[in-house]
């Protein structure tokens, strides 16, 4: 057995037991130590497997009709079928693409307007006072409640759907950009002015950059909310999109497609969040590393 082989086995074991470093072994206090719960991804594999098996067993036992409880196999078949043949005129890939396009459009517009407004609110008493009640008021309104109004006001094009997603993004981005401005250490501002920076340079090179971690956190939250609002948006007279697919399938009592759609949305939402995290690490490596 070669040296590298040993190491491999060992690191696999480490993964399994949750990467117990030498340290964990010498600690006497583990209950309450946050470091003690690191790792343990292997249990996750177990848990997913268990859920899958239980699901399949219940389906096989036929306790409930497949209409209520489609088997994992049936759901997977639907996935393959819709991925290859499509659903109501669009392939699964196209449905996903259309939904992603809407989410990205609403999200992009929300960022485009939200960041300047948030920065303005963080920097200027007048803008803050003016915008504050409007945002505070519309923020807690459920997006779904707008749907009837959005149809009346925006019609049935992609405009209405994007508006809904825009509204969902906007307030979150505004609030995070504003918090980002508020979080700037006054010493940084003072230092920049003392180094000869103009107001515009302070805004561009200190305030905006300093607010980036907060803005990015807001963007991650907003992206999640957007994805959660997608189904509501696609209630608005859509003919495509994964959200619409789920709603439409439910009209035809295609529980397997509904379940497939739900799982798909979960997986895609999870992947989006992962990408955003990676992006964050790449774009904002200094996050959480400032000293006050």
């Amino acid at each position: 057995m070669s040296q590298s082989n040993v190491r491999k086995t060992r690191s696999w074991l480490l993964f399994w037991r949750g990467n117990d470093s030498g340290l964990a072994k010498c600690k006497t206090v583990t209950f309450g130590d946050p470091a003690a719960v690191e790792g343990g991804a292997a249990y996750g594999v177990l848990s997913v497997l268990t859920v899958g098996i239980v699901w399949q067993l219940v389906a096989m036992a036929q306790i409930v009709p497949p209409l209520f409880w489609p088997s994992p196999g049936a759901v997977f078949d639907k996935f393959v079928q819709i991925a290859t043949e499509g659903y109501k005129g669009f392939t699964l890939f196209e449905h996903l693409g259309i939904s992603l396009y809407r989410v990205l459009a609403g999200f992009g517009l929300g960022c485009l307007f939200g960041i300047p407004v948030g920065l303005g609110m963080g920097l200027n008493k007048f803008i803050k006072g003016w915008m504050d009640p409007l945002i505070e008021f519309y923020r807690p309104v459920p997006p779904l409640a707008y749907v009837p109004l959005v149809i009346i006001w925006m019609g049935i094009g992609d405009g209405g759907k994007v508006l809904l997603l825009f509204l969902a993004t906007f307030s979150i981005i505004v609030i995070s950009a504003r918090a980002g401005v508020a979080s700037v250490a006054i010493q940084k501002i003072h230092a920049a002015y003392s180094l000869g920076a103009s107001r515009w340079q302070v805004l561009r090179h200190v305030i905006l950059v300093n607010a980036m971690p907060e803005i990015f956190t807001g963007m991650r939250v907003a992206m999640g909310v957007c994805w959660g609002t997608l189904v509501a948006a696609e209630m608005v007279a859509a003919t495509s999109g994964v959200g619409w697919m789920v709603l439409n399938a439910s009209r035809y009592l295609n529980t397997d497609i509904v379940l497939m759609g739900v799982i798909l949305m979960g997986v895609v939402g999870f992947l989006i969040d992962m990408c955003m995290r990676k992006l964050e690490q790449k774009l904002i490596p200094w996050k959480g590393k400032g000293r006050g």
Partner: protein
Amino acid sequence: ADLTVAYFPGWPTTHQLGQDKGWFEQELGMEVDFREFDTGAAMAAAMLSGDVQIAYSMGVIPFTIAVTQGAPLDLVGIAVTYSENDNCVVRDGSGVDTPADLAGKVVGVPFGTVSHYKMLKTFEKLDVDLSSVRVVDMAPPDVAAAMTRGDVDMGCGWEPALSRMLENGRLLVSAQEQESWGLKVFDIIAVNREYAAEHPDRISAFLSVVDKSTDYVAANPEESLSTISRQAGISEDQTRSIMAKFGFPKRDEQLSDAWMGRDVETFIKGVADVMQANGELPKALDDYAAFIKPEFYANSAAR
């Protein structure tokens, strides 16, 4: 509640008189709860969960879809017939004068409903190529709103939204003409099969109260109108005009060949085939007779 009945909001039917007068409770000797539902699909889903035992005025299409998908539901009667209260409206100024003009236009219709089916059959009859129009899935009130804005050129749906659509549009094809093609439109009374098997007498009792209500409405039209309009949540004028176009077949008529005796089964089979052809349903059943149970209505007179 001991018994929960699903119904459509804004849909003025005679049973609402019995509902208002408490006849159902009296006749069945138990608490009867009436629940609003948006769509027949939602009614079917709720019946699957077991929380709803009877659906009054479920659309034929959702029923067909549900039983084709394996839902244990049965059809026990016809709730209301309404060819004129469910139709397609062409918007004024949309430039659609003949069916051929529909090519490239936008049509709003609630998918998986009678309106949808009617539209498909009408297109078939008028030789409109389905792939040449853009069909959008929308609830009737949304269709009405979108038509006001000019976003859709033709909209299909039922009352009360249909009246709204007609405010700035006209019918594509009259109901009489559609009926002459054999295109009936009706809502049914569906029951949860298991429940009906356990309590056949309750179903029959329920149906007898429906007929009693229909009789009362015929005898006291003005009083009934105001009661029903209140129950349905629409104005008396609307109630009057909608109900004028409704038909409420009673027991003997329902049991005849025109309905449960023969035609309903043929109709449902036809619906299922069309939907299969359009890819709305994976596979139509060979035979829908098993889902039609006239015996409950038949027994309702014995009470």
